[in-house]
């Protein structure tokens, strides 16, 4: 594990054509890292995330992605992700291939990856189409003991998983507090793990059973206060629900979206620049 400026971490470890998972379920979404990927103009990425959320709407709209693996692609509580829809419905700015799962399937796929297994199991459920949706590639298996139908999901093993977390200690261990989603599994499944954190502390204030990623499973870490904004970091700042609502209008048409991205992401130096441009940080 090495501590690097975020721009350097992305420059070193994220390459065109990779499969990358920016995880964090609603909570701790690594927006700063995603924006840096946009600034560095990565292309042909296979983006993996249970809930693409605004960050993948932005990556997709900026033309970084060629495939999306996901399980729920909306703006939570608000409506559509317009850039995702534009890519799927009208191939703008480029076609986007989809690998679509349910949350439960994708959780099992990450778990399988984290466990070194080529696939994971779910009980087979008849009568729903996702099993047969193009790209989802589930297979039916049979329990060798009971004969019961099971559904197998192929493991997800991202080239790079990127997480945001609260704290890193002097030894490089990282504390995650609050809603986890499948972040831990996505990290353990990946070939490389990048982490952005709110702050560096001498020692983690971690309870015995706290969620800590040991330094030696992490490839590189960057200190990025506010790095999950407009998502949130439990104990640091809340989710900016007003921004999530506002995004619906910002992203609705291509020109407005591009102008916003130019002004707040591409045209600023780093995440602090975005936070200042939005008036979120002084």
């Amino acid at each position, binding site marked *: 594990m090495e501590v690097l400026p975020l721009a350097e971490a992305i420059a070193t470890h994220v390459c065109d054509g990779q499969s990358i998972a920016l995880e964090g379920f609603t*909570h701790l979404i690594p927006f700063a890292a995603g924006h840096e990927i946009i600034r560095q103009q990565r292309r042909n990425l296979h983006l993996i995330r249970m809930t693409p959320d605004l960050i993948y709407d932005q990556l997709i709209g900026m033309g970084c992605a060629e495939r999306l693996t996901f399980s729920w692609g*909306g703006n939570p509580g608000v409506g559509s992700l317009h850039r995702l829809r534009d890519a799927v419905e009208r191939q703008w700015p480029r076609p986007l291939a989809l690998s679509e799962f349910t949350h439960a399937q994708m959780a099992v796929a990450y778990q399988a990856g984290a466990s070194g297994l080529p696939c994971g199991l779910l009980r087979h459920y008849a*009568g*729903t189409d996702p099993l047969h*949706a193009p790209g989802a590639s589930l297979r039916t298996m049979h329990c060798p003991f009971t004969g019961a139908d099971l559904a197998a999901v192929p493991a997800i093993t991202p080239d790079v998983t990127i997480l945001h977390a609260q704290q890193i200690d002097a030894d490089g261990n990282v504390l995650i507090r609050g809603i*986890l*989603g499948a972040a831990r599994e996505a990290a353990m499944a990946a070939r490389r793990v990048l982490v952005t954190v709110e702050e560096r502390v001498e020692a983690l204030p971690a309870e015995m059973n706290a969620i800590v990623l040991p330094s030696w499973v992490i490839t590189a870490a960057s200190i990025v206060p506010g790095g999950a904004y407009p998502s949130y970091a439990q104990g640091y700042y809340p989710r900016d629900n*007003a921004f999530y609502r506002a995004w619906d209008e910002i992203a609705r048409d291509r020109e407005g979206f591009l102008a916003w991205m130019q002004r707040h992401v591409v045209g600023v130096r780093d995440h602090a620049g975005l936070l200042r441009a939005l008036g979120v940080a002084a």
Partner: protein
Amino acid sequence: MSSPDYSRDEIMTVTAARQLRNGAVCFVGIGLPSAACNLARMTHAPDLVLIYESGTVGTRPVVLPLSIGDGELAETATCLVSLPEIFAHYLQRGRIDVGFLGAAQIDRFGNLNSTVIGAYAHPSVRLPGAGGAPEISTYAREVLVVMKQSPRSFVSRLDFRTSCGYLAGGGERRASGCPGGGPSAVITDFGVLRPHPESKQLQLTALYPGVSVAAVRAATGWPLQVADTLESVPAPEPAELATLRDLHARTRIAHARPVHINL
């Protein structure tokens, strides 16, 4: 008749909330289901156990979450578990009494579409997709659906079957091996539909005050059957309305609060 002192949304939410018995373990979808579940918890069902797919178990939010994973849910939960765990140990394991869902389309057998309008490969509208719905509809002992009713949403044929209701009806769901019981009620902005005991076809069982059967039929994309006994849903009680409006007011204020980050 004077216009009622509540909105269609409000009676729909109140009616949905009333379906929940105290002590039930409920897997909550976002939006109207979340409002209904929390209204129930704040009124007649204080021991309702609410689980959101973000892994927040037994959560008791004071304001409604906008997303399925707002910090409020974590702060007020009995415990937090990972997402793989909530789906495996709670839902797939069969520990959920009631699943609460919305969707873009529903058919007469309670099957749901939240994936695409049009063909999957070339959709006219790409919807958010499955999320937790297919497993909720498969494993919850009972499913409640809340949806506004219109010919575009209550359709004779789904564009995509994201989540199973009673499949083609009759005993087909049970024969398919789905362990959960399927949708027991669909609460709309007109009234309540429930599956016929034999055919499992949704039929109108209750109407809101002032709503006509003809109006419901006009809002349904298939020839809607009406139950032998058609009940009238009591109008929202003042206490229910007050609690719901307070909840929404608190929520609006909380969601508008500016975020400040110290760099």
